[in-house]
């Protein structure tokens, strides 16, 4: 693997680390399997790209992308909480709808960012090679998100959100408005995904409606890899695990793709990812079964 490919993998890993953290929030903390991210990731990219072209400040454009993601999350949460549509289905509806919304936002299937200033522009002239600047800047943003989120989840509000996911009946008996916490959590999860989309557009120089396909699986893969390499109970460590998992996943993919002997093409990525996630989900079950049967034998 070349140095450029290595830093490229780290960079894209860091961008998707925000997706992984969002997926961790919905799947793990709220126990709400939310596929909205497949739509909110390109939504964030689209909103950010269109605003950048309109001359908006890149930080404001990124914030707007996060807010758009949050709005998408609120739609899913409303369909589920208010109208009792199954969470998976609710999120699929939002995701499908967002495909059209994203086309509307951009006015065409993809938008290129050529000369526009991005959050990275101020850092390009500092004498550090561009392919290192990008992961550095994204890394700082991810670190800030991890710190803020760890603090948030340790707050009274955050604790109530975690209780909502673990035992909603108990949480309600302790005075937690569980519905409000589902809204807040799913909005936050998709806000992070929208922000990831904005960073993706700015680091890669384009927004495209098809970039969303498989976002959820990539996010899940990162969460699962993170849980495997960093099996931590402490929340801050679990969040760091999501980041590590996302980077490791990208490095593994990069390795697989650059090893000609395996014969994989870039277009095989989704298949490889899906197989990886399926294996990671099946393994613990097989392990538990094996340990049960050895116990039974004794």
């Amino acid at each position, binding site marked *: 693997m070349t140095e450029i490919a290595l830093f490229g993998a780290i960079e894209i890993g860091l961008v998707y680390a925000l997706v992984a953290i969002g997926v961790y929030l919905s799947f793990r903390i709220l126990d709400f399997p939310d596929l909205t991210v497949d739509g909110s990731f390109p939504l964030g990219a689209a909103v950010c790209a269109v605003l950048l072209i309109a001359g908006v400040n890149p930080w404001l454009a990124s914030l707007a992308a996060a807010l758009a993601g949050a709005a998408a999350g609120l739609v899913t949460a409303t369909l589920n909480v208010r109208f009792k549509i199954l969470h998976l289905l609710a999120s699929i509806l939002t995701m499908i709808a967002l495909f059209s919304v994203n086309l509307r936002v951009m006015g065409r299937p993809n938008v290129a960012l050529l000369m526009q200033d991005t959050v990275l522009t101020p850092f390009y002239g500092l004498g550090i090679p561009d392919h290192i600047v990008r992961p550095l800047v994204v890394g700082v943003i991810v670190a800030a998100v991890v710190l803020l989120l760890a603090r948030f989840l*340790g*707050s009274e509000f955050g*604790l109530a959100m*975690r209780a909502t996911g673990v*035992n909603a009946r108990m949480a309600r008996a*302790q005075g*937690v408005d569980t519905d409000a916490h589902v809204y807040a959590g799913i909005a936050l999860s998709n806000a992070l995904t929208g922000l990831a989309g904005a960073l993706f557009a700015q680091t890669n120089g384009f927004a495209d409606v098809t970039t969303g396909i498989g976002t959820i699986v990539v996010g899940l893969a990162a969460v699962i890899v993170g849980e495997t390499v960093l099996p931590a*109970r402490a929340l801050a460590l679990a969040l760091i695990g999501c980041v590590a998992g996302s980077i490791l996943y990208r490095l593994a993919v990069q390795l697989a793709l650059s090893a000609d002997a395996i014969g994989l093409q870039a277009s095989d990525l989704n298949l490889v990812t899906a197989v990886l996630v399926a294996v990671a989900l099946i393994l613990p079950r097989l392990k538990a079964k094996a340990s049960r049967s050895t116990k039974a034998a004794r």
Partner: protein
Amino acid sequence: MIVVEDIHVTFGRGTPLEKHALRGVDLTIPEGQFVTVIGSNGAGKSTFLGSLAGDVLAEQGRIAIDGTDVTRWDTPRRAGLVARVFQDPMAGSCATLTIEENMALAAARGRRRGLAPALGGDRRKGFRDRIAALGLGLENRLHDRMGLLSGGQRQAVSLLMATLAGSKILLLDEHTAALDPATADFVLDLTRRIVRDNRLTTLMVTHSMRQALDYGDRTLMLHEGRVVLDVAGEERAGLDVPHLLALFAKQRGGAEISDDSLLIG
């Protein structure tokens, strides 16, 4: 003080499984009274407790707690006034959160939850002192996950959690039914101590007539969604389990005669 006026609850209205679970319960429970509730399966005990907690909203009638009409309040809103311990030790706490996190959740009951750290300041020390008083040695396990505790320990911690936010009403739904006899005795003694020390108005549902008479100062019997027996004071002190069984049979007979549908059924 709890005032319940003629509450009715029907499940599955208009379906073949329609069940009229509460058929007009009237009750006044003065502050600090410890009431035990008995009744056969399906008598409406849990529904009655649920209607006080807000899980089940009464379709008719009125519920007031400490002078506030809470009839239409949902569970989270009532939680500031009412604390509960469930029958299933798993139900009353979060297994994957630590003991101190569970306690912090309970301590914020009825308050707005903000962005301040849930376990900041001297919170931890306060929790440690409170849990040490249980005498279970849990003060050194505050960082352990709740799921690592035994059923009895979880019920004991749940009882303690019920007292952290200063609610004055405690609802116990067969909270010792899932425990072995020795542990159940321990939890019941702890219940008595906690109710006395915090002067809680308490309703304890139990399936044991012995427990119903041994604990508390008033006993209710529910049958077919109505209160069919309500004894306190000397009358209750003179009762024994056989008496209670006899009364139960007699009241059931009385209830059946006054209810045509039961005679036909």
